[in-house]
């Protein structure tokens, strides 16, 4: 037991990920606040770029990072498969996905999709979004043809006319909006499953104090973004190498207001989980309710933010 | 087919291998080429064959200058050069054209003549040195070329087999009146087969002597006249001990 407390003190390195879909993580990295905070103890800060939720989960599962940013549904799926992770913080409520079609298309509503070809990346948030949008209209994925394409390729396929619609993801979606006037014909911010900051269970158990400190730092970054929306968009544009215009759209679609994981998030991913189960992405024997409850652990954020 | 070499020279990277060779071969003539090792005999055959076009001078076949391979020319190389992925029979049939049955017939017949009947299915790696050489001979003779270039064709054969094949070569010559140039180190062989013997010498090799062999065929291997010529040739070769080494 004594060794564990000493391990708590002697954390030699802390490993975080940053991602272009999590603007706060970019701010954190850019300003070096984590390094600053840990300078005294001599703890080394290691940053790893996550190119997508699945990468972040891979890193978490293989004990390559301690904190990983993912979409909520992705975290749920991984948790359902036994991944030892916990969601401790919500870095944003993004509207990063919507249904897109071409300018001159006659698809105007989700109902028009019946029998059409739709591009999406299986298992990712856009796919879940598509399934939920269809479900709302009483349709299922079997009523359309889903073409599995990587996010960027889906946009190309859409513009080239290989598919009729695309379940898009930012920044691709924003970029094509700007450059090709591709309309987003169906939007619903509640069908997006939030940006989850996850931590490995083992780390949370051993180093609860550090989890809280990181959340504190994230809060600092969130506050900065709320205070400086212009600069935040510029920072995103510069870091991710995208046009400022695109970055602005992307920032506009992020809601940084509520950071404590709570019932809304729980409900959202439970709903997502049920849809996924119906679409056979999740096994029938998975207890969505329980998995979601195990995934979301609000106590750290509550202590940090509530105590402020 | 007549063959004329006019001032033919060949150098490799600036070092001459043969120099200023003049030679005229009539249709049906058998010319022997003798000379010390490395004096350029094979090089000369290669220029005649058309495989080597980097020579200076002019080579005429049937009064036409030609720097290409002539289809009517056959070449028995110094090494057997069998195609390792073909068996004996297929190697012999390699140059033949026409119906398979005819080709088979010809090939089997000539394999008989070179003493390789029953060895049709062996692959080159399973042949003895002399057997490989005989397959190469068979492969060249089976197409009955009009000009035949032979580079030490019988060097790997025992005395007895060699004599048999020499006689076989004369049979072919009788039938087709093939023009032949025969490189050999065996003076007796040259005298037994050739109408004329040309002696190359030195490095670069130059023609130093030409001897006519007048005796009518079939010749007697032990004849007086040939013995006399042999001693002439030995003199011509031995005189230049110094230039060889």
């Amino acid at each position, binding site marked *: 037991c004594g060794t564990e407390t000493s391990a708590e003190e002697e954390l030699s390195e802390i490993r975080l990920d940053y991602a272009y879909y999590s603007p706060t993580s970019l701010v954190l990295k850019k300003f070096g606040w984590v390094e600053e905070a840990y300078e005294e103890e001599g703890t080394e800060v290691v940053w790893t770029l996550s190119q997508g939720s699945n990468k972040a989960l891979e890193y978490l599962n293989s004990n390559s990072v301690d904190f990983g940013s993912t979409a909520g549904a992705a975290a749920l799926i991984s948790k359902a498969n036994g991944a030892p992770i916990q969601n401790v913080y919500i870095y944003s409520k993004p509207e990063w996905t919507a249904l897109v079609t071409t300018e001159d298309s006659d698809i105007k509503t989700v109902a028009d999709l019946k029998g059409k070809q739709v591009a999406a990346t299986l298992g990712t948030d856009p796919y879940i979004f598509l399934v939920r949008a269809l479900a709302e209209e009483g349709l299922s994925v079997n009523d359309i043809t889903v073409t599995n394409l990587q996010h960027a390729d889906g946009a190309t396929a859409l513009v080239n006319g290989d598919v009729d619609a695309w379940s898009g993801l930012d920044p691709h979606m924003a970029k094509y909006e700007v450059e090709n006037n591709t309309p987003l014909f169906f939007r619903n911010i509640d069908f997006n499953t939030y940006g989850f900051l996850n931590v490995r269970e083992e780390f949370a158990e051993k180093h609860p104090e550090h989890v809280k400190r990181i959340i504190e730092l994230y809060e600092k970054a969130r506050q900065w973004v709320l205070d400086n929306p212009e600069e935040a968009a510029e920072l995103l544009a510069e870091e991710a190498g995208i046009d400022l215009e695109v970055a602005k759209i992307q920032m506009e679609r992020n809601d940084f207001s509520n950071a404590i994981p709570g019932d809304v998030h729980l409900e959202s991913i439970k709903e997502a989980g049920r849809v996924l189960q119906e679409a056979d992405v999740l096994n029938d024997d998975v207890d969505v309710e329980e998995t979601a409850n195990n995934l979301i652990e609000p106590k750290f954020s509550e202590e940090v933010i509530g105590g402020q | 087919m007549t063959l004329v070499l006019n001032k033919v020279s060949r150098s490799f990277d600036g070092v001459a291998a043969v120099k200023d060779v003049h030679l005229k071969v009539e249709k049906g003539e058998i010319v022997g080429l003798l000379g010390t090792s490395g004096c350029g005999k094979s090089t000369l055959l290669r220029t005649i064959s058309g495989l080597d076009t980097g020579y200076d001078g002019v080579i005429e076949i049937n009064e036409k200058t030609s720097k290409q391979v002539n289809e009517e020319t056959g070449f028995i190389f110094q090494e057997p050069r069998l*195609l390792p992925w073909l068996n004996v029979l297929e190697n012999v049939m390699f140059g033949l054209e026409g119906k398979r049955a005819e080709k088979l017939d010809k090939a089997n017949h000539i394999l008989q003549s070179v003493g390789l009947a029953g060895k049709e299915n062996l692959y080159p*790696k399973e042949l003895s040195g002399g057997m490989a050489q005989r397959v190469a001979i068979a492969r060249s003779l089976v197409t009955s070329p009009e000009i035949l270039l032979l580079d030490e064709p019988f060097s790997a054969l025992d005395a007895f087999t060699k004599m048999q094949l020499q006689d076989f070569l004369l049979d072919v010559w009788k039938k087709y009146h093939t023009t032949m140039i025969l490189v050999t180190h065996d003076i007796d062989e040259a005298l037994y087969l050739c109408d004329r013997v040309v002696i190359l010498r030195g490095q670069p090799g130059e023609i130093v002597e030409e001897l006519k062999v007048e005796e009518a065929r079939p010749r007697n291997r032990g004849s007086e006249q040939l013995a006399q010529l042999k001693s002439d040739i030995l003199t011509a070769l031995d005189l230049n001990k110094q230039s060889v080494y």
Partner: protein
Amino acid sequence: MAKIEAEITNKKVGIFRKNKVVIEKLNTILIGSIIPILLITVWELLSRIGVFPSYQLPAPTTILNTIYEMGLDGTLWSHIGVTTYRVFAGFLIGTGIAVVLGSFIGFYQRAERLFDPLIQAFRSIPSLAWVPLFILWMGIGEPSKITMIAVGVFFPVYLNIVSGIHGVDRKLIEVGKMYGLSTFQLIRRIILPASLPSFLVGLRSGLGLGWMFVVAAELMGASQGLGFLLTFGQNMSQPDVILASIILFALIGKLTDWLLKLLEQRSLQWQDRIQD
């Protein structure tokens, strides 16, 4: 009498030989399985003890079960079938082009100087880089997928053919030239057989790359296939599906390679090689 007896013995010898060949082959397979079986057993044991947690590396039995279930509901066969078809088609096309271009470029130094630099430059472009371009040029149907695989197959086959041709003994080519063979005949009757060992290695390398490129190919709008299964598993965080697809890749790849190896053994009997 003696003759008949001899015939009988001959027959016996024949049967005996045939048996021997079969036993020999079985033996080879058995020996080759020793290490894989060992590895799998250790893996299973470690998984059972819990050294590898199942969300990272499921036990072999779990993976087999996943494959078995896919087999039951039939999806397994369509995945395997579609991918095999694509690899096969891409392999044929890639090999065909490589043979034509490779013979040509290997034979004519001028052509080599003109085309080879470009081809070599393309060779190091990763499969994933082609994906957006191929979608752009050919859409997301079968053509882009098969072309992608053909690209993967092309390079090793091409490289080996050109080098094989360069390595053909001048002496043998001269034999062909003496018989007045045309360039085409020369290539067919001398150069290709002589460079066959190199060509066959190229084929085997190419086939391997074909299997590798399948994943990139099936990123282009597939809904079936082993590569699809792999990316699906990765996107869905299903390690058992990932490993199932890896194992299927290994098995089927091995099987097709084995066919090529048989071909190699058959057609290279003439090689004068060492045996120990």
